[in-house]
């Protein structure tokens, strides 16, 4: 370690004209994308990020491969998640089937993982205390982290969609789609509907991200945050599976996760879709506000 070099010594405390430090320095002027960019860079410097995205790229391939060989051996899609049985005749259904396969558990798991890491992961790593020594507002930081988690999932969705389309085309070819109502729509129209389904899926995942973020604020272990989030999600699913708790269904977000099917009715059955989005928004906002309140008062001891 060298002593202060000549160039450094004359710089009096707070003398950096552009610096936010020091009494003479201006406040950091709003670069709205700056904080989001920082969170994005942090995500890019984690190995698990590429594991999840890699998984998103591989799953459509595996689905296509499995259905292709099942057909060769005389088997079929065999029921299962929505659109799976339609894949054989049309690769346009691969992105849809992939989402349908992932949305009940794997996507919520990915959302819980990234959301759960956001605060607890930093606390675990010890970086939370070093970033909170910078003049950033905790609320703004939390919202940025939420947005970064959603951006991460959106990128994963793009990978899933693109991979589904690619392998669907390679294995089965792309053809006009048949809706659940029996009408046929063009490839472009079908792609548009699939895109809407993906957007709905992302909106659904915002609830999991918010729930995971709340858990992430409460604990200092990202694994605990992930587990608690998943346990809550599974518990809700189990509870609403019983008819005794049917009254609860309209109020909990997992109930609406499969409403994306209604995009493939002709005409689109908007009512449950809109109800679902309203529900997602309410839960997302509620959970994020709860996370904010807790984070604001949180003693950072990690």
């Amino acid at each position: 370690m060298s002593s202060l070099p000549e160039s450094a010594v004359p710089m009096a405390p707070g003398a950096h004209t552009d610096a936010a430090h020091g009494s003479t320095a201006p406040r950091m002027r709003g670069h709205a994308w700056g904080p989001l960019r920082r969170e994005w860079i942090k995500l890019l410097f984690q190995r698990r990020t590429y594991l999840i995205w890699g998984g998103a790229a591989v799953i459509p391939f595996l689905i296509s491969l499995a259905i292709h060989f099942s057909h060769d051996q005389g088997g079929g899609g065999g029921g299962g998640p929505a659109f799976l049985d339609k894949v054989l005749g049309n690769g346009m259904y691969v992105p849809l089937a992939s989402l349908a396969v992932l949305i009940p558990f794997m996507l919520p798991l990915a959302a819980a993982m990234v959301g759960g890491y956001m605060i607890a992961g930093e606390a675990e790593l010890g970086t939370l205390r070093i970033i909170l020594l910078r003049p950033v507002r905790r609320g703004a930081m939390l919202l940025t982290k939420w947005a970064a988690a959603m951006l991460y999932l959106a990128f994963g969705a793009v990978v899933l969609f693109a991979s589904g389309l690619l392998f669907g085309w390679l294995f089965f070819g792309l053809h006009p789609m048949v809706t659940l109502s029996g009408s046929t729509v063009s490839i472009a129209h079908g792609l548009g509907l699939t895109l809407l389904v993906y957007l709905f899926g992302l909106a659904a995942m915002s609830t999991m991200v918010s729930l995971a973020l709340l858990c992430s604020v409460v604990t200092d272990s990202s694994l605990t945050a992930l587990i608690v989030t998943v346990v809550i999600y599974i518990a809700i699913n189990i509870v609403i599976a019983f008819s005794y708790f049917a009254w609860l269904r309209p109020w909990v977000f997992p109930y609406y996760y499969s409403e994306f099917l209604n995009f493939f009715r002709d005409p689109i059955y908007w009512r449950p879709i809109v109800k679902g989005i309203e529900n997602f928004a309410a839960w997302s906002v509620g959970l994020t506000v709860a996370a904010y309140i807790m984070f604001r008062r949180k003693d950072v001891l990690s």
Partner: protein
Amino acid sequence: MTPGVAEAQTQTKAQTGTTGRPDQLGCSGRPVVLSTHALTKQFGSLRAVDGLDMDVCAGDVFGFLGPNGAGKTTVIRLVLGLIHPTSGHAEVCGHRVPGELQGALRHVAGFVDDPTFYPLMSARRNLRLLGSMTGPVSEERIDEVLEIAGLLERAESRVGGFSHGMKQRLGIAQALLHSPELIVLDEPTSGLDPRGMKDVRELIRDLGAAGTTVFLSSHLLHEVEQVCTRAVILNKGRVVVQGKVSELRPQNDAVKVLTDDQDKAAETLRAQFGAAGVSDDEGFIIVKADEDGVPEMVRRLVADGLAVRAVVPAPEQGLEDFFLELTSDEDAKPAVESRRRGIARVLGRRR
């Protein structure tokens, strides 16, 4: 408790007004950049910080001393807004914490506990990322602080591969990025080799000389003695003593006396200096006598027919001894004794 300790504490009490605040004359007209006002933090039944009042003046290299568990890191966390006080508040560069934390943090940098970074990022990228949270930071400045920290050659290396000492250096580098008015360093030399320790201490001194206020938490007393201008000694969440480091050490006006008849000499000296001013130490008589008192003392001894064989200055009580006395846990002594006896019993049974 030795007379020296008692004096030092009395001095602290004398400086303390009715509100318990130390007299800010210690700052010699310099502004106070960091102060705490009855700062208290309670964790459940544990009072980690108890009504802490202290002032750090501009330009100070301020030592924050205390044994493990004294509450040093808790105070730093409170001051930097990482945790919320149960009562009281801090003022950092004119900003009240909590309340105006963002304003305060624009003037402060540093680290608490071990500095930690994103392990898969390079040192440079870590600095770029952390620096951008405060304000624009140029690549030249990053190079500069890396050079100061002695890490320029490892700028592109992943931090995950850094040793503890290198992370400490990087922690200092990130603290320097925006030339803050106040740098808070929590045991910055821990984990460093002797050369690294020396370098960091020199750097801290240089920062102080350049006008930056440094708040240095440490349990290394000689480090504080070497580097700091003022210091606080904390114990059980309370300030035991604070002031200039040069004045923290108790004044040493004692001499060791050796004569041909120590008993008679002790009698003579007690008559001159009182019983409290005379004690015995391994055959020598220790007398609390200042420079003016020593010739008179020798005259009296000779007048009483004693042969004075030696009068030498008594060894000074080091800051370390002073610190240990101030922070010794009297309540814990019976428990320690009981534990020792228990261990002796167990060992006895085994034999």
